[in-house]
């Protein structure tokens, strides 16, 4: 997409018109949740948060992959990082996430662990190729957005017989988590803004249950202010229907059935499994495990890692924040014991975490 086209989706006059419509059409208070961390940041960065109508109450959801990575998963990759002959390859977001005793990959690196920050999973494969005597473990953290590219890398490793490449798959799937959120009576969500990135892969139909089962409106949307405002307007309008259909606001990026090829690649290498979500707990069928055919690439099996419940960080309210039960400022640690400089929970670490967004962008 050219920058010129993107510019139109930032257009202040268009935003003003959409805001006016929203103000006119909104009848009662609505609590909407944007599931995706990129949306959270977009809402704050563009200043939208400060100009939305008062009746629109904004909740941030569990859509930052770093934030929902469970404590036990963080501990697992920290344990691996100390091992001889292991090179950890990871996207940058993960290196400051605290695990047990506040330890993170950045500290591990200072203690001598080999940690490489990469920009694509294919770079990790390259590192494996260049270091045949070491095992390169790629940290597979993310949603449906990144999983296909990681699966494709695993397929390539198999084809090229690069056996010292492994993946620690802590992937999470978005739709099952939403089911858990809506069924929780305390969350009181009137509508969802759904992540455009995820739908470029899975399309819009995996979200059909939100309207059909719960009568809650849901709009797949892009990341510019015009996208978000238009999606909110669509949400307000569809609230009047009994079983609203999931709306695709982001038609320039998302086709109804997504990218079936990417989904196919993803499910050749992985299969769905139960997964632990930070602050939420176990959600059935919300993760991706290696399929039998590719299990030799599974770092969990190769290193015999045990992932299980472990105590959460004392005082951290990330769970409530991720579920939209609490805004970050209400957490007693927010801005005091917990800041981006010394984060207690992952919501403050990730650039897309809600606590970090409130801390970074909110004026008062």
């Amino acid at each position, binding site marked *: 997409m050219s920058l010129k086209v993107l510019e139109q989706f930032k257009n202040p006059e268009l935003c003003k018109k959409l805001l006016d419509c929203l103000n006119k059409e909104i009848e009662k208070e609505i609590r909407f949740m944007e599931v995706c961390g990129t949306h959270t940041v977009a809402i704050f960065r563009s200043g939208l948060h400060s100009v939305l109508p008062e009746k629109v109450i904004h909740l941030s959801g569990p859509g930052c992959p770093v934030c929902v990575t469970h404590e036990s998963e963080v501990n697992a990759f920290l344990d691996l990082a100390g091992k001889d002959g292991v090179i950890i390859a990871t996207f940058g977001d993960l290196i400051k996430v605290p695990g047990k005793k506040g330890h993170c990959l950045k500290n591990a690196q200072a203690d001598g662990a080999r940690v490489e920050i990469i*920009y694509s999973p294919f770079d990790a494969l390259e590192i494996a190729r260049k270091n045949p005597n070491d095992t390169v473990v790629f940290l597979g953290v993310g*949603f449906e957005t990144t999983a296909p590219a990681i699966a494709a890398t695993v397929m390539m490793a198999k084809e090229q017989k690069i056996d010292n490449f492994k993946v620690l798959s802590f992937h999470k799937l978005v739709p099952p988590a939403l089911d858990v959120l809506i069924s929780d009576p305390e969350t009181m969500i009137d509508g969802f803004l759904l992540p455009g990135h995820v739908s470029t892969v899975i399309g819009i139909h995996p979200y059909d249950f939100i309207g059909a089962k719960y009568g809650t409106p849901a709009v797949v949307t892009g990341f510019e202010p015009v996208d978000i405002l238009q999606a909110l307007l669509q949400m307000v309008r569809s609230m009047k229907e009994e079983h609203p259909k999931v709306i695709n606001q982001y038609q320039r990026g998302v086709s109804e059935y997504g990218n079936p090829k990417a989904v196919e690649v993803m499910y050749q290498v992985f299969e769905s499994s139960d997964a632990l979500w930070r602050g939420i707990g176990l959600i059935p069928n919300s993760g991706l495990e290696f399929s039998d055919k590719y299990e030799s690439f599974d770092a969990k099996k190769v290193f015999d890692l045990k992932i299980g419940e472990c105590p959460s960080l004392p005082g951290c309210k990330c769970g409530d924040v991720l579920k939209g039960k609490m805004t970050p400022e209400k957490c007693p640690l927010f801005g005091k014991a917990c800041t981006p400089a010394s984060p207690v929970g992952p919501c403050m670490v990730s650039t897309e975490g809600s606590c970090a967004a409130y801390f970074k962008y909110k004026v008062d």
Partner: protein
Amino acid sequence: MSSDKVLLDYGSGGRASQRLISELFIKHFANPELERLNDAAAFNIDGKISMSTDSFTVDPIFFPGGDIGSLAVHGTVNDVAMLGAIPKYLTCAYIIEEGFPMADLEKVVISMSEAVKDAGVAIVTGDTKVVPKGAIDKIFINTTGVGQIVADPMPSGDRATVGDAVLISGTMGDHGLTVLGTRGGISLESNVMSDSAALNHLLVKLVQEIPDVHVFRDPTRGGLATTLNEITTASNVCCELEESSIPVKPEVVGGCSILGLDPLYLANEGKFLCILPQKYAEQALEIMRADKHGKDACQIGNITDANPGKVILVTPLGGRRLLNMLEGEQLPRIC
């Protein structure tokens, strides 16, 4: 030099070192004070002095628009000049990894000598160390500069005052994106180039023609956002910026959106911020725009008393949000 690679011997202090110094450094940095080869440099400076030091460890060492040598001059010359001073003398210390190609070293030294000439300063003393392979990444350069302060009153980070205009000399993020974009692993195909440049001549012109410049700062590491936060904290004032008036090249906007970076946090090496009473803003902009290093200069905001210590960005939608200090390095995102 007899070898095409830098050897440990060249840092030994013996003959090999002397050869390196005379055949490379003295040859290119030629000036009478350096040629005396004393243990220290002697020079006269009258009045108040501005002094600054910086170590340069950029990766890659050659990048579009510059290299570590010119950067090591520009960085320190600019820092010295930000107090309203005329930079005069530089020291330079090289720490070189054993095995570093001699041809690259010469390229760096030549580029440094050209930067020095352009800035009108002299390298009057220096040092060379060679360390075993792996002890450092290729080459580090430290420069220290001194200059004579000519502005009275002197611009300073704690002098931003309610009612001041905030001016910027040009586009943001060019250097930071260039360096990140040329690093291994990312291949950004774009024409973006580092803005690395010596700004001292323009800065001196400004303080000589405008009666009172409150603050000069170069938004290097941490970018515009971090620099402005330092100023608002030191001056205990609020800076309100109009986002749409902050100049950023379209290719920088594009590259940043691919990598998930914010141009307002990216380093600049040839730009400066100028904060001064609103009544002098137009005059300052005219002077800046007449110079090649300030042709895109514009006013980006004002100093107010709204939220002391904070930088607030007014977005094109009319929304207001904080522009906070950068915490650590900017890292490209997961998705």
